[in-house]
């Protein structure tokens, strides 16, 4: 192996909080070879982003390197002065962060921003830099770079913006590209395109990647080697193919067991018990010991070293052979649950039209939710999923169409409740949890003040919350706890149906697993129906009985989950399924062409025709008919049933 482009040598980084230093990263050793793609995974607070910032020499003022060092292309970062750092950033190392919107200057055209890198780091003249910018835009697969370079960032979609940021990074001809959650803010279809772009660029350019993500599938798709971070330590490292199939550290195994697998529907999720330790409260022995299912007594006393467990592999575990094997869920039953979707409708909406500020958001949408079933609503952002939820819950009034909610509890009880995406805004920060839940019980179960207060502890326990937390306010709870309170609030009465609007997308995977299992348990005990809005098809497989796929305000396909995800299906559904990151074993993946035009520029005829690989003349002018490949499975497409795509499985 030649000299690494990036090396952390026993690196520890501490942050000062209220006058005390807490170690955020402890004793991390890792080296990235030229041209290598190294993935760093772990949950929030594990120190991934601190490492990314350290690699750029961007530690905040209240942080310091407390031990070890960072070498970039052989140069010690600590020895560089301001000028040296400036040369390094954008030159030797470039970074791409989560939100392209804040990485780009809104007042400059994207071409100028790329050309600037050529001028400052490569010494190009104005003319040459401007031409190089167009060439680089085409290199990141933005067709027509000569035109696009004159655009301002707001004129581009999120995916295009992220390509521009990548182009800026590549313009300096870096040895290392630091990618901190570069696809997290993007739709899965766009994410798939960006991941494919990285693959292509790596084949073309000799650039190493430090790829940071919480999404194991994404990391698996891009990286050669992977490091797993936990509580500031690198707990396991190894080649991407073997590490996820045969983990040698119980935390890695636990992380995998938390994640719904698109290809193993019935596998139950096993949340990791407990929560990661706060910085400053990390245990003396193995940091994972308090949550480890196979911890022994000596794990709590000795801090395990990062020891080799195989070729190119290392684990910070004293007993790596005890690591539980990964359950691939082979032969397991499907995600459907008994009794789902057989009863009468608890929610029926017909012919919904919604317009916001003159823009058509929903067009002629029919939805039926039967008692006890879980209907997943999937689609890219801007497809109208949340707007549909707002109409169904009565938060927005449709321009046309009817919504009927048939409650089983009479008029006093609200039959339809909702759980929101953001755990930050879901609870009123001024009120204690006990007050919030008691109020919900009074309103939704029609109880008196006293009776409602007495019922709070039981409701909290049902959501796996410690009733002692009733005295706290939302700000004093973790994101997962807040989301549990929100779920408890939705279940305060006896709801017939609950709308779940991406309830886990802002949470870490281990917290997501616990929330999904909670929701599954509540459903099975209470016979409630869910309208589950999500962009994660693996979660759909895991939980849903039926699926409805939305595109630009219409439902293009709906039917039983297995039928829709197994095909034959709408070309858009096929593209969504192909975009699910599933490691390297990807057969032919049909990729979407073009970008989502957005509801304001909704195409006539079939709204999907501008991106459809099967587009025909009729698609441009006429709305497609509904075809039924199976009973109860509808596809809105001009293709005849035998011609409908079947996703590769």
């Amino acid at each position: 192996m030649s000299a690494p482009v990036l090396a952390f040598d026993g690196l520890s980084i501490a942050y000062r909080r209220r006058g005390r230093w807490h170690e955020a990263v402890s004793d991390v050793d890792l080296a990235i070879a030229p041209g290598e793609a190294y993935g760093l995974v772990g949950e929030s607070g594990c120190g991934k982003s601190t490492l990314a910032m350290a690699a750029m020499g961007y530690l905040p003022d209240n942080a310091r390197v407390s031990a070890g060092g960072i070498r970039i292309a052989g140069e010690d970062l600590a020895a560089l002065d301001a000028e040296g750092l400036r040369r390094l950033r954008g030159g030797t190392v470039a970074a791409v962060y989560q939100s392209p919107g804040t990485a780009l200057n809104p007042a400059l055209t994207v071409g100028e921003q790329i050309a600037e890198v050529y001028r400052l780091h490569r010494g190009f003249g104005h003319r040459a830099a401007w031409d190089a910018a167009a060439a680089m835009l085409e290199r990141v697969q933005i067709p027509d770079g000569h035109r696009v370079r004159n655009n301002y960032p707001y004129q581009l979609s999120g995916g295009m913006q992220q390509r521009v940021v990548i182009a800026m990074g590549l313009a300096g001809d870096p040895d290392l590209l630091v990618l901190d959650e570069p696809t997290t803010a993007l739709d899965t279809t766009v994410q798939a395109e960006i991941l494919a772009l990285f693959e292509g660029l790596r084949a073309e350019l000799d650039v190493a990647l430090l790829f940071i993500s919480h999404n194991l599938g994404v990391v698996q798709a891009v990286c050669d080697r992977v490091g797993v971070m936990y509580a500031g330590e690198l707990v396991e490292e190894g080649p991407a193919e073997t590490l996820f199939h045969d983990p040698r550290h119980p935390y890695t195994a636990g992380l995998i067991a938390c994640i719904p697998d698109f290809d193993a529907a019935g596998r139950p999720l096993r949340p990791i018990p407990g929560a990661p330790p706060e910085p400053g409260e990390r245990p003396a022995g193995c940091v994972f010991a308090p949550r480890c299912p196979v911890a022994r007594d000596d794990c709590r006393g000795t801090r395990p070293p990062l020891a080799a467990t195989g070729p190119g592999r290392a684990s910070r575990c004293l007993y790596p052979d005890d690591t539980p094997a990964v359950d691939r869920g082979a032969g397991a039953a499907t995600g459907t649950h008994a009794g789902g979707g057989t009863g009468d409708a608890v929610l029926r909406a017909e012919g919904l039209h919604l317009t916001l500020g003159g823009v058509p958001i929903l067009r002629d949408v029919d939805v039926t939710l039967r008692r006890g079933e879980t209907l997943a609503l999937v689609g890219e952002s801007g497809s109208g999923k949340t707007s549909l939820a707002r109409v169904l819950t009565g938060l927005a009034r449709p321009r046309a169409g009817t919504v009927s909610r048939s409650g089983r509890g009479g008029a006093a009880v609200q039959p339809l409740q909702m759980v929101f995406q953001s755990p930050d805004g879901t609870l009123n920060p001024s009120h204690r949890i006990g007050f919030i839940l008691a109020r919900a019980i009074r309103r939704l179960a029609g109880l008196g003040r006293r009776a409602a207060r007495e019922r709070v502890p039981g409701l909290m326990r049902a959501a796996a919350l410690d009733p002692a937390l009733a005295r706290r306010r939302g700000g004093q709870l973790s994101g997962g706890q807040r989301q549990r309170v929100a779920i408890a609030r939705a279940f305060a009465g006896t709801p017939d149906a609950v709308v779940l609007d991406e309830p886990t997308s802002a949470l870490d995977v281990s917290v997501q697993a616990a929330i999904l299992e909670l929701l599954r348990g509540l459903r099975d005990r209470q016979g409630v129906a869910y309208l589950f809005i999500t962009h994660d098809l693996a979660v759909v497989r895991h939980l849903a009985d039926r699926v409805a796929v939305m595109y630009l305000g219409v439902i293009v396909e709906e039917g039983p989950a297995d039928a829709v995800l197994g095909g034959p299906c709408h070309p858009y559904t096929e593209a969504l399924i192909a975009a699910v990151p599933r490691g390297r074993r990807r057969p032919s993946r049909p990729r979407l062409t073009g970008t989502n035009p957005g509801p304001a520029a909704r195409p006539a005829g079939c709204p999907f025709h501008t991106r459809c690989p099967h587009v025909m003349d009729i698609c441009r002018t006429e709305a497609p008919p509904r075809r039924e490949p199976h009973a109860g499975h509808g596809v809105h497409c001009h293709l005849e049933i035998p011609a409908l795509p079947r996703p590769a499985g």
Partner: protein
Amino acid sequence: MPWRVLEPLRRSPALAVGLAMVAAWLVTAAAAPWLAPSGPTVSDYGALSQAPSAAHWFGTDEYGRDVLSRVLFGGRYVLLIAPAATLIGLVLGAAIGMSAAYFGRWVDEVIMRLLDAVMAFPIVILALLALTMLGGSTGNVVLVIGLVFAPLIARTARAAALVEVRREYVQAARIRREGPLYVLAVEVLPNIRGPLVVEGTIRLGYAVFTSATLGFLGLGVQPPAPDWGLMVAENRALLTSAPWTVLFPAGAIAFVVVGFSLMADGLRDLEGR
């Protein structure tokens, strides 16, 4: 525990200084009967228009009244007027602003355009018009200042409430069919407390200033009451011959207004964190 209370003062010197200035005014105004060397309307005909001296620290006016005593007693009028007027402005403004934010659409449009129309007039002109119609009494001064402040406070309340009414907890309340009154009073109001407190503090300072202005124009308290604005008005002809009769009451107004401004600045800084 006592140190926790003082923590904000340590973090924001502006708040500490402003609070000290306002407290100094509160204490001296409240203790005026004991602190003042004489009554506010007592004339010493042996000492007309005298410069500050050991006997009369702030000097005397043309009727031989002790300026220090008058300034101290004058603080009592504003002590009542400013908080009462601000309270009226806050209650009214918060109610208007939050309603505009909550109901949105045409309700918001109508309310805000009306407020814009009202705010197009300078505050003093509005107050002048109102007081001319209602007649100048202390109660009317309070009412009028409160009314002219309401649009300004409404604007602040609306801006803050607009952020909150879109939050998920408000949507959750609407899904469980809570009425607008409950949503605004219980869900929204506690979360816009910060901006309202800051705005209220700024308004307190302006209320002092406005009541002094009205006093100066002769629309508030009537002579011989020792109102600061009134004192400036009565003695403004003596600005060159007996400047202390004007400068001390004017200084008192400035002192209190600056005190409240500093407090508001400090509170806003703490809010921002």
